[in-house]
């Protein structure tokens, strides 16, 4: 199982734990992640404006690299995944954007969405299989009540992201169950944490995260997992330590190898 891997800026700096645990777990599971050579920041937000070409180019470059290598492109950070997956769809469906991107990048063959973009969790679910993971778990998270926090970017808009049911996702819970944990269902798991607004409007982030944390806690969660560094930051910043927020890959690595602080 060979993939190009796009870590993104945050995983190289503030979210090193996300990157490191993902790579370690992948190795355990026989998944080979080759880092995209000379990748650039994806821009962190998908440019919804249809006339915004330049902001799409770095995603296109990563997608092109994977096309040339003939392998799927795997992402992990929710923001990177969102941007790259949606830009990929634009290139496949919007001939105008496709041609403009080709002009900017000087491509003789325009990039038309040929690369398969996969989130790390999709690789685990569909290519490795949660059942296989379950069999490889050496340190099950038995009895741990964990709430899965999806946030927005992995799920919506569902017609493009095609990650999971946008209102009732279960992929993280299914993985947690494979790791031996007891996932806790709560209704705010797909509601926004306020995202980048935490920078300019901390009060908004505080309101949103409180709603999420309260909902999870009331349902019995003793910890949360997420795949997004910004969600992780916003949630842990406002939880006051009462509800630890882990990267899902940290729990995965711990269950597979043991030794992590949580397990």
């Amino acid at each position: 199982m060979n993939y190009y891997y796009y870590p993104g800026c945050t995983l190289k700096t503030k979210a090193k734990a996300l990157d490191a645990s993902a790579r370690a777990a992948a190795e355990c599971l026989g998944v080979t992640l080759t880092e995209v050579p000379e990748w650039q920041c994806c821009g962190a937000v998908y440019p919804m404006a249809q006339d915004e070409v330049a902001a799409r180019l770095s995603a296109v470059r990563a997608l092109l690299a994977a096309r040339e290598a003939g392998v799927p492109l795997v992402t992990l950070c929710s923001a990177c995944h969102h941007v790259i997956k949606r830009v990929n769809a634009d290139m496949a469906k919007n001939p105008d954007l496709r041609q403009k991107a080709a002009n900017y990048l000087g491509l003789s063959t325009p990039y038309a969405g040929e690369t398969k973009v996969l989130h790390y969790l999709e690789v685990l679910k569909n290519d490795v299989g949660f059942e296989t993971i379950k069999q490889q778990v050496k340190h099950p998270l038995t009895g741990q009540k964990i709430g899965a926090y999806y946030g927005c970017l992995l799920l919506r808009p569902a017609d493009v992201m095609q990650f999971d049911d946008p209102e009732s996702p279960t992929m993280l819970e299914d993985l947690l169950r494979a790791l031996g944990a007891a996932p806790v269902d709560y209704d705010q798991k797909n509601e926004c944490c306020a995202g980048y607004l935490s920078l300019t409007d901390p009060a908004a982030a505080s309101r949103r995260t409180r709603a999420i944390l309260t909902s999870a806690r009331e349902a019995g969660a003793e910890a949360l997992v997420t795949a997004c560094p910004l969600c992780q930051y916003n949630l842990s910043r406002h939880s006051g330590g009462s509800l630890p927020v882990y990267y899902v890959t940290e729990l995965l690595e711990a269950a597979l190898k043991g030794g992590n602080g949580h397990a």
Partner: protein
Amino acid sequence: MPETTRETVLRISGTNTRKCMLCGKCSGSCPAYDAMDYRPHQFVAMVERGEIAPLLQSKSLYACMSCFACVERCPRGVQPASLIEALRAMVLREREHTRLPAQLIPELIDAGTPQQAVVSAFRKLSK
């Protein structure tokens, strides 16, 4: 000021406001509702009527979290978030309207702030 026609907003947003049936599900879903002066459904209605100028002044442009709940739940395939984004882009493309000067950043971050937050905020609020 940027050109303020309905057509410009529709072109940049790639949205068809005429599909709206005024159900209000966007505004019923919006997590930033209380911070908005104009609400998601009003963006759709006002763009459709060509009332663009007041929207360009709206604080909602900077309250939208781009969570896509309105896009996902709209029963008619209208994308209120894309309209908000188009209008925000129209404002920010005028250089004097940059909302987030780089020199402000150091005060806004702490030791844990992920790059993702800074980069997104820049993309959303400055040009």
